[in-house]
């Protein structure tokens, strides 16, 4: 059933995102063409553009900027809206009477939400890559990257890949935690008989405050132990790794709390309008 839930979730969300991604690609190519024709030396220091090219490029860049912002906002909006509207408004009457487990519903929404966030990032990267084509040589870039790796190894005695992997993992877990925090807030909000959306916002703010307080306490207690090491400089990278992985572990704990909180409320205290 999980596979079917995922399939229908992708179907329900894809109709919003695919046209946006299509528009982004078209606009990227249009902008790139306009740049190539109107301002061939755009990335050099002395740009010379004609007035018409300038106007067209201006419009293209503005549209591009608006679309990029719209994509990021829509990703967040869809993550929130699919969880709230599909589960806790009238549509919930259908979803909660399907022969599926509660965790499958939460999980399918989480996975698809995360997927669109990653796709959004990828699309922006691809678009940026297309726009900057011709401004650099692949050879130089790859040389710079391998030089970076070598420098890093020389300085810290470890591969840059380790840090990059830890950063990636941290971002992934952080992303999951932020989505689950939205979910648990919505689940708390629906416990109220009125003003559910306001209650959900309230829950989100309260959770944020509580987390801030706990984080400050941890910040006061924990780094003091490593501060000495940090000051010595040699172990600086160790301290950074500590910070990254410590945050990841905290986020894992938050994920578990938010996830089971959401599931508990959905199983025991479902309160559809």
């Amino acid at each position, binding site marked *: 059933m999980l596979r*079917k839930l995922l399939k*229908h979730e992708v179907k329900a969300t894809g109709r919003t995102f695919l046209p946006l991604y299509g528009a982004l690609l078209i606009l990227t190519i249009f902008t790139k063409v306009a740049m190539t024709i109107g301002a061939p030396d755009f990335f050099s220091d002395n740009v010379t553009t004609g007035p018409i090219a300038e106007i067209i490029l201006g419009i293209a860049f503005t549209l591009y900027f608006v679309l990029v912002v719209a994509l990021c906002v829509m990703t967040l909006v869809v993550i929130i809206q699919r969880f709230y509207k599909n589960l806790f408004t009238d549509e919930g009457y*259908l979803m909660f009477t399907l*022969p599926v487990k509660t965790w499958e519903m939460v999980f399918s929404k989480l996975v698809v939400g995360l997927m669109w966030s990653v796709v959004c990032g990828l699309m922006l990267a691809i678009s940026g890559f297309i726009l900057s084509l011709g401004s650099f040589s692949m050879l130089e870039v790859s040389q710079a990257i391998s030089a970076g790796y070598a420098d890093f190894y020389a300085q810290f005695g470890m591969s840059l890949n380790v840090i990059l992997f830890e950063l990636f993992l941290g971002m992934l877990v952080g992303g999951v935690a932020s989505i689950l925090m939205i979910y648990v807030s919505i689940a708390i909000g629906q416990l109220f*008989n009125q003003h559910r959306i306001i209650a959900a916002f309230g829950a989100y703010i309260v959770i944020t405050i509580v987390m801030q307080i706990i984080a400050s306490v941890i910040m006061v207690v924990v780094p003091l132990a490593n501060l000495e090491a940090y000051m010595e400089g040699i172990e600086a990278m160790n301290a950074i790794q500590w910070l990254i992985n410590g945050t990841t572990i905290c986020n894992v704990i938050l994920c578990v709390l938010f996830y089971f909180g959401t599931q508990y409320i959905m199983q025991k205290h479902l309160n559809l309008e």
Partner: protein
Amino acid sequence: MTILSAKNLTKNFGKKVALSDVNVEIPRGRIIGLLGPNGSGKSTFIKLATGLLVPTGGEITIDGLAPGIETKAKVSYLSERTYLNGWMRVEDIIAFFEDFYQDFNRIKAENMLLDLNINPGDRLKTMSKGTKEKVQLILVMSRQAELYLLDEPIGGVDPAARDYILNTIINNYKENASVVISTHLIADIEQVLDDIIFISKGEITLTSTVDEIREKYNKSVDGLFREVFKC
């Protein structure tokens, strides 16, 4: 053989008591009217049976099981809300039902859509409220479920379609399945009912067969209802 059983079933919303100590057994192979005025607890009872609500006290079982994934596969539920996403076409929602309910019969659904002149390619948001209700009822009755829980199935549809819908209900359920219909439009559905449950202020005040009512009170169910629940 009991398909649905409630023992000391109680549901409170905060301090408000919606159902209080309800005991009822619903056998297989019957069409049961769950009858009561607005706010008497009809929908609450049905929602407890579907698992949309969790009891405050007592228990409710379907085929011996507490509401859960197994019972949801056996229960076909028509909510009083229109729960279909507006952006979907009728054919999309049919595919959805087919995917999630193994007992869904696509051919049945398509035939009923044809009978009621509903185009499978139409989007739900372009439909009137009555048409949406018809689509929902078609979906629910196209399942070969063991228990149908129909919450106000005919409230929003015109009298001509009501007859078709009632016929659909009678003709579409398996022999050992039961249908629970909650409504206050008793005169319209009286002809199809086998049994009735009167519910008032969260308590069951009468359970009886329709024949018994006609013999004992010499009244139609509608007549008795009007007398019992007179304001």
